[in-house]
């Protein structure tokens, strides 16, 4: 009997370890290709800032979505500048978000939105900011496909132009509002690849009480340290503005345990802590499973 229990425990640990290994490999490939460390279909995505670079990044993301057996959709937009006087001088912002829907396994009109921005500053490979966010939500959705009971639809969305005053997510929030879809919650991920002190800590930005409880519940089980901040400088802010329950999740940016290479050409593949990213991905996956119950 003791031998049998030992064997089962060994198999469970081995399986979990194997899953993490596969996850790390998958995320290494995605971030490698997305930040120009690995060639993709004969091209290199060195940065995702200019309109041509962002077009290429969108093609890549559509390809990734198709690889999940889902249909990629484009939400194109034109948005005014921040000040009407600037409108007199400049052209409007022009871009496109990419999204897809993983349907619930039961009849449901509710959506849980998982989002991450895909653009970078000029000349930056953006491996951590925000290749890691893109890889995290991609892997979470891939794992959620295998979950038998999903009570809500999952919307996977990659935002354009976060680095330009959150324009892409603002356009998407407007789009969701116009569609009048029932949004359960919006979870955005921006930079999840740095953990210098190795404590696996994550930051929750401005969660609603329900979302805070959901994250803390799973975190206590997995022994992941969390803390809450009121930082609102990334995409979740756009959704809160139009009244959706939203949360921002990322590395410990508020405690300065965050990539020092943000918005620089040094934000490369080699600086990503893939163990931390994989651990964070499994954590978010568990949170989603709770929300799906």
């Amino acid at each position, binding site marked *: 009997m003791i031998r049998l229990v030992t064997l089962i425990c060994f198999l469970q640990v081995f399986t979990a370890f194997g899953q993490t290994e596969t996850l790390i490999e998958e995320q290494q490939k995605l971030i490698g290709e997305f930040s120009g460390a690995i060639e993709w279909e004969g091209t290199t995505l060195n940065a995702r*800032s200019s309109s041509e670079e962002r077009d290429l990044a969108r093609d890549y993301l559509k390809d990734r979505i198709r690889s999940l057996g889902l249909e990629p959709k484009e939400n194109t937009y*034109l948005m005014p500048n921040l000040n009407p006087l600037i*409108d*007199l*001088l*400049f052209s*409007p912002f022009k871009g496109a978000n990419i999204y897809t829907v993983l349907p619930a396994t039961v009849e449901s009109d509710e959506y849980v939105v998982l989002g991450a921005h895909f653009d970078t500053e*000029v000349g930056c490979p953006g491996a951590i900011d925000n290749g890691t966010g893109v890889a995290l939500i991609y892997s979470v959705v891939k794992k959620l496909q295998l979950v038998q009971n999903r009570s809500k639809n999952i919307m996977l969305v990659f935002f354009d132009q976060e680095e330009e005053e959150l324009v892409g997510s603002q356009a998407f929030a407007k789009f969701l509002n116009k569609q009048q879809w029932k949004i359960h919650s919006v979870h955005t991920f921006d930079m999840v690849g740095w953990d210098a002190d190795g404590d696996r800590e994550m930051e929750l930005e401005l969660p609603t009480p329900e979302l805070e409880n959901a994250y803390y519940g799973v975190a206590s089980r997995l022994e992941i340290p969390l803390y809450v901040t009121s930082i609102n400088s990334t995409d979740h802010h756009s959704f809160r503005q139009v009244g959706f329950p939203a949360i921002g999740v990322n590395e410990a940016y508020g405690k300065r345990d965050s990539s020092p290479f943000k918005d620089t050409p040094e934000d490369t593949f080699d600086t990503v802590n893939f163990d931390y990213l994989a651990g964070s991905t499994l954590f978010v996956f568990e949170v989603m499973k709770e929300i799906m119950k």
Partner: protein
Amino acid sequence: MNRIIENIKSSLQLSLAILASITAFLFKGINYLIIGSSIPFLLGMIIFILIIFSFNQRNRLSRRMFRLWGWLLTFWGTSRLVMELMFEISSITEEHIQSQFTPGQKLLSICVVITGIYIIRKVRYYQNPDTLTPSI
């Protein structure tokens, strides 16, 4: 209406420069109105109405209106060119700002400045056809 058309015909080049430039700005205003920003459209509409009203006159007030429009165009184009120079010096990294200063956009700014100067210079001849000396 006939008087407006007559006045336009009598100073065709100047009138075309004014009408084409205000139409372009009005078009820009409509584009912004569609995406939720009304200020450019409102300003464009006010200037458009004042200009059409001025075409109905042929006096000092209409010349002043056209001259003002010429100065506004010159200011618009010059501001963009100065901004481009400033952004190049300070090496701004925002893609949206960089995308405003492509060679095509630069050419547009220069064309607008030239149109503005042309209107300012030509408008002094836009006067009562009975008088022959240019007004200032």
